[in-house]
């Protein structure tokens, strides 16, 4: 006869109901402190924030794989430094959403203001509306998917990672770009210095398909995009330019 002691092990106390923070009644710091004090994400996996009303730094510095649903629009730096959290903004985001994200996922159901995903090192940022200027500035490994358009100077000095734009890009896309890859489905108003159109090879189509899959986008095909990247002419000092300095 097999005897198991599994049934006698104490059941783990898991709080499946989300922990709700009403920012009309609770200071933002209490929310962020509670998020920073999570010991084990499995114990309290679901969080909800109501009445954000444009607050700054909502759910900044999350470093556990928890889900945070934000019901409304947020201000500066929502989800900044995110490392593993899955943050959804059911509204629009102010400047610097997902700034310096390390890993995890941020979804903005509305629009994002300037420098979305700036300096991001990893993870996935999905903007279902439009992103304004400087989207992905100095990105360093993050993947950014924008369903709408991106504004001027997007991917400025972008170092690595992928910026995927289903709509159009504004002026000076990819100015002074390093090795980030840019995929734009619509028009590009103008390219920045050292950013050029590049050929889509099968490995790029596969890479783009994988990002679209992760972003849950099924209604467009990788073949509809144009790839842009660095011409690599600014990497080394060119003596012919000496007179310019």
């Amino acid at each position: 006869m097999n005897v198991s002691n599994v049934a006698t092990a104490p059941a783990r106390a898991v709080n499946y109901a989300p922990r709700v923070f009403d920012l009309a009644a609770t200071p933002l710091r209490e929310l962020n402190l509670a998020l920073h004090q999570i010991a084990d994400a499995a114990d309290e996996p679901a969080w909800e924030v109501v009445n954000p009303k444009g607050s700054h730094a909502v759910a900044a510095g999350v470093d556990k794989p928890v889900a945070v649903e934000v019901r409304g629009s947020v201000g500066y730096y929502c989800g900044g430094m995110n490392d593993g959290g899955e943050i959804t903004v059911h509204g629009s985001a102010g400047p610097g959403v997902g700034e310096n994200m390390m890993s995890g996922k941020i979804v903005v159901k509305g629009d994002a203001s300037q420098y979305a995903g700036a300096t991001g090192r990893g993870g996935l940022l999905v903007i279902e509306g439009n992103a304004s200027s400087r989207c992905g500035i100095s990105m360093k490994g993050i993947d950014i998917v924008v369903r709408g358009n991106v504004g001027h100077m997007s991917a400025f000095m972008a170092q690595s990672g992928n910026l995927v734009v289903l709509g159009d890009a504004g002026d000076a896309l990819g100015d002074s770009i390093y090795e980030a890859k840019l995929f734009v489905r619509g028009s590009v108003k103008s390219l920045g210095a050292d950013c050029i159109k590049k050929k889509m090879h099968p490995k790029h189509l596969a890479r783009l398909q994988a990002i679209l899959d992760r972003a849950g986008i099924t209604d467009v095909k990788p073949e509809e995009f144009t790839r842009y990247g660095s011409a690599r002419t600014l990497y080394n000092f060119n003596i012919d330019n000496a007179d310019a300095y």
Partner: protein
Amino acid sequence: MCGIVGLFLKDKSLEPQLGALLSEMLVLLTDRGPDSAGIAIYGGAKEGRAKITIQSPSPARDFPKLAVELEKEIGARPTVTVKSTHAVVEVPADKVGEAREVILALRPDVRIMGSGEAVEIYKEVGLPEAVAKRFDLSAMTGTHGIGHTRMATESAVTTMGAHPFSTGPDQCLVHNGSLSNHNNLRRELKREGMSFETENDTEVAAAYLSSKIAHGQNLGEALESGLKDLDGFYTFVVGTKNGFGVLRDPIACKPAVLAETDRYVAFGSEYRALANLPGIEDAKVWEPEPSTVYFWEH
């Protein structure tokens, strides 16, 4: 930093609430600019009458007998409505120019904030909430207004360094940003005969617009000229007798959010300022494009 708000009402039934809505918007942006605050509010225009808003460091000395003394000089009875350090002097419209000169001659410490048929301008140093309370902004009514909370970066925290700055009859300007060529422009404008109260860059932008308008441009054209001549960072909001306008510089790093419903058009440096407006959940909310002049008029 600095915070800007603007509210242009389409629905007349909101007019009694204009001051209350605008002052709440202003207070919500306190941490963008806790040094000083100001508001330009448009309303109460009367046929053939004009308003001059004045400010005095000694209101108890300067305001009480002003109406009587002014009447002797201009031959018409003004009304003087005192609000803390400011007073609104109402005179016949054809006497505005004369009245402005006489007020400055009679009261050397008084500064003119602006004048026009509809505009009243109030500004002071202090937290936006304190400034709003001082002038009882929340009780004011009107058709539209703009406001500013200042975090001074390039000139002193003084009443005259606060925004809005008048650019002409019923016109004023608020600014978030900093201009880098204001000293040179100020010298050029001084050569044209314009005078300045402060070392403030926004005052130069206001004088620049006034000068362009004096040379025959309309406000929209003057703002377009500014794109060429004003070097630096700016989100400008301008108030006019019938409406308000928005212009961002080509780089557009100073924030700006617009919201529009059937009842109003609202501007805020951040969405926060708009979050409590009636019906904001269903408003069209967007960021104004760089180098693009936006205008709403009645």
